[in-house]
């Protein structure tokens, strides 16, 4: 909230106005606090009704969870009610005192002003009298002076005016002293009110916790752990240095962040709203709250880019801001209806510090049974590729859902149990740099960090769920490097791989699959250019077919046909064997993999992808 400087005192000297301020607005706020306190009281009463009725209607585990969670609302609401009441009391008392001071100040200010005006007039009159200052105590005619120059009547008038001026100055002094006393009263009232508004009764229990300066990360986490979720939220929000300290340890502390975030519950959303720049990319924070934080940052960056474009004066600046706007708007397009879309979409990560990097999640990443990353290759960036990479990822999501349904899962449930991260989280190479492993190695660190955060959340919310990575072209080079460290990932599928950096052998829980179309020249070019062997040559990998074939639908027990994938960018095309098979292994259903048929039965190309030619 913006603090507006109060208006200056208007009497023409340096005593501030002791009665300044809009007390009617203060009373309006106090009234709204009282109303809110009443509403919270009603809420507490409603909770009493709910918890009283519930056991006679509903029993069992879910009922106990609901009952306990409902009862747990009462302490927070009690604190909130007390806060409203204290707030209303403090403002009402303050407004009354300010109005008393204002009433007392008004006549003093009027007397001061009146006396001041009188003095001006009397001094003006006195200046016209030919009697020097100070006025002589007795009349003494000037010898030899012409008649009328300085007569006794003038002297008497000068003496009288001097007396009036002295009297008015005394009045002013008295009024000023009274006003200064009222200023002191006002300062005391200000302090009393501010103290009341800052008291633990108004602010809540967290405000009594001693300063947390200089605490280690563990001490910070222990401190927060000792508070209720709401108090911990408010403490964290009011101590951004603590949040920054926790961010400094990220992603190594992702598990601790995930534990903290889970304990904050709904409070995590408040922290995300108040500190979006930190929470948006805080590994271990819930994907839901990160999405809220990143959307705030995205909207802010969009506004900033628009302002930049509006004020740009050179063609180069205009082009720069226009490109940035296009980039950011691609993210907006990918998000679509956001959390109300089906499946829900959220902005899982956003880095606008250099080239914009972003990842969009389709589904519930923290809770879904089967989560996957889709990692892109050369020339994939947010400006040119966000929308199409998202479409590929969404198609992969749909295929996984369809296979779960085919395997007997209810459709609504299947949609809840899949999540795909459309991850443009690293600076992909261009044709000149694709031979180098550098961007894969840098990208691998970023992918590792992201996976650490995701795993930390999923270990809490769905520890038995699976996590997969599907990676295209140079993205597979990046993913293999990332997973050469054991990241607790279950399945990796490389498709159209640009080759494996020697020594970056991936570690997987379940399996490593690779697929490559016979008519995909770019994979080979990438492998040769970079001197990186195909993952097909690694005995640890299993071949996953991308050619046409059949799979048996377990619901209908009928064979269903899948098409061959063609070219470097045809792997995620609908109805292809590659899409189907990648979906099957990443939901832990390798038994649904298609069996190839002979090349004579394979159809022609299914269409090209906008990413055709990407490595």
């Amino acid at each position: 909230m913006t603090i507006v400087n109060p208006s200056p005192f208007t009497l023409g000297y340096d005593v501030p106005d002791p009665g300044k301020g809009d007390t009617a607005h203060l009373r309006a706020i106090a009234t709204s606090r009282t109303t809110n306190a009443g509403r919270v009281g009603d809420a507490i009463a409603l909770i009493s009704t709910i918890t009283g009725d519930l056991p006679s209607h509903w029993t069992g585990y879910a009922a106990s969870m609901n009952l306990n969670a409902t009862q747990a609302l009462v302490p927070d609401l009690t604190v909130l009610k007390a806060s409203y009441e204290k707030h209303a009391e403090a403002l009402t008392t303050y407004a009354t005192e300010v109005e008393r001071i204002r009433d007392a100040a008004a006549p003093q200010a009027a007397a001061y002003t009146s006396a001041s005006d009188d003095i001006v007039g009397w001094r003006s009159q006195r200046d016209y009298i030919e009697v020097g200052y100070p006025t002589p105590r007795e009349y003494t005619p000037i010898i030899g002076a012409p008649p009328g120059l300085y007569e006794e009547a003038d002297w008497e008038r000068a003496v009288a005016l001097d007396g009036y001026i002295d009297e008015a100055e005394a009045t002013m002094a008295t009024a000023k002293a009274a006003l200064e006393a009222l200023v002191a009263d006002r300062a005391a009232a200000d302090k009393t009110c501010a103290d009341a508004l800052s008291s633990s009764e108004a602010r809540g229990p967290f405000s009594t916790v001693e300063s947390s300066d200089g605490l280690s990360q563990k001490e910070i986490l222990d401190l927060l752990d000792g508070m209720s979720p709401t108090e911990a939220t408010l403490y964290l929000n009011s101590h951004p240095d603590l949040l920054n300290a926790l961010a400094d340890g990220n992603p190594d502390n992702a598990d601790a962040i995930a534990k903290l975030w889970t304990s904050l519950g709904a409070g995590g959303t408040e922290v995300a709203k108040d500190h979006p720049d930190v929470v948006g990319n805080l590994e271990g924070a819930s994907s839901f709250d990160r999405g809220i934080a990143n959307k705030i940052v995205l909207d802010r960056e969009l506004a900033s880019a628009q302002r930049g474009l509006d004020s740009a004066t050179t063609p180069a600046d205009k082009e720069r801001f226009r490109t940035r706007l296009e980039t950011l708007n691609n993210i907006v397009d990918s998000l679509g209806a956001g959390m109300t879309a089906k499946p829900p979409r959220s902005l899982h990560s956003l880095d606008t510090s250099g080239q914009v990097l972003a990842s969009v999640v389709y589904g519930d990443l923290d809770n879904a049974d089967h989560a996957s990353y889709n990692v892109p290759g050369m020339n994939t960036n947010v400006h040119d590729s966000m929308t199409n990479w998202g479409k590929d990822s969404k198609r992969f999501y749909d295929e996984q859902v369809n296979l779960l349904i085919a395997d007997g899962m209810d459709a609504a449930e299947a949609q809840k149990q899949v999540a795909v991260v459309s991850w443009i989280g690293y600076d992909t190479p261009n044709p000149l740099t694709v031979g180098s492993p550098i961007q894969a190695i840098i990208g691998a660190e970023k992918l590792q960090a992201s996976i650490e955060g995701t795993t930390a959340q999923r270990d809490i919310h769905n520890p038995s769920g699976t996590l997969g990575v599907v990676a295209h072209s140079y993205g597979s080079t990046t993913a293999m490097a990332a997973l050469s460290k054991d990241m607790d990932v279950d399945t990796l599928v490389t498709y159209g791989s640009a080759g494996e950096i020697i020594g970056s052998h991936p570690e997987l829980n379940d399996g490593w699959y690779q697929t490559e179309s016979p008519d995909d020249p770019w994979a080979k070019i990438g492998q040769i250019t970079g001197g990186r062997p195909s993952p097909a040559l690694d005995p640890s990998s299993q071949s996953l077919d991308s050619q046409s074939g059949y799979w048996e639908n377990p619901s209908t027990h009928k064979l269903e046909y899948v098409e061959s994938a063609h070219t470097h960018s045809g792997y995620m095309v609908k109805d292809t064997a590659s899409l189907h098979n990648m979906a099957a292994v990443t939901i832990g259903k390798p038994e649904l993999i298609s069996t190839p048929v002979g090349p004579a039965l394979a159809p022609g190309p299914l269409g090209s992808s906008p990413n055709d030619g990407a490595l």
Partner: protein
Amino acid sequence: MADLSISGEYLDSLRSQFTALAAFTSTEDDAAVDHSSCGSDLVATAGNQTATLQLSRASIASLNAMALSEHAGTTSVEIAALDASLAKAAGDK
């Protein structure tokens, strides 16, 4: 299985109670609680900070109530699905 002793009707009613609960603590416009015109920087700062905290507390309470409504709603859906499944199983016999 004790959870199944509950009726979908009661869960719907419970859900609406939680929605009402969330409404009791719904947040308000920042401008309505802006103390800046009070004539004292000290009071304005303290008042606005306290109001911000109240907004956060109310928001958290509202989100928690909505989560409980969602929990009751989810349970309601699950029970409806189970009822349908049981009915289908009975019909199959």
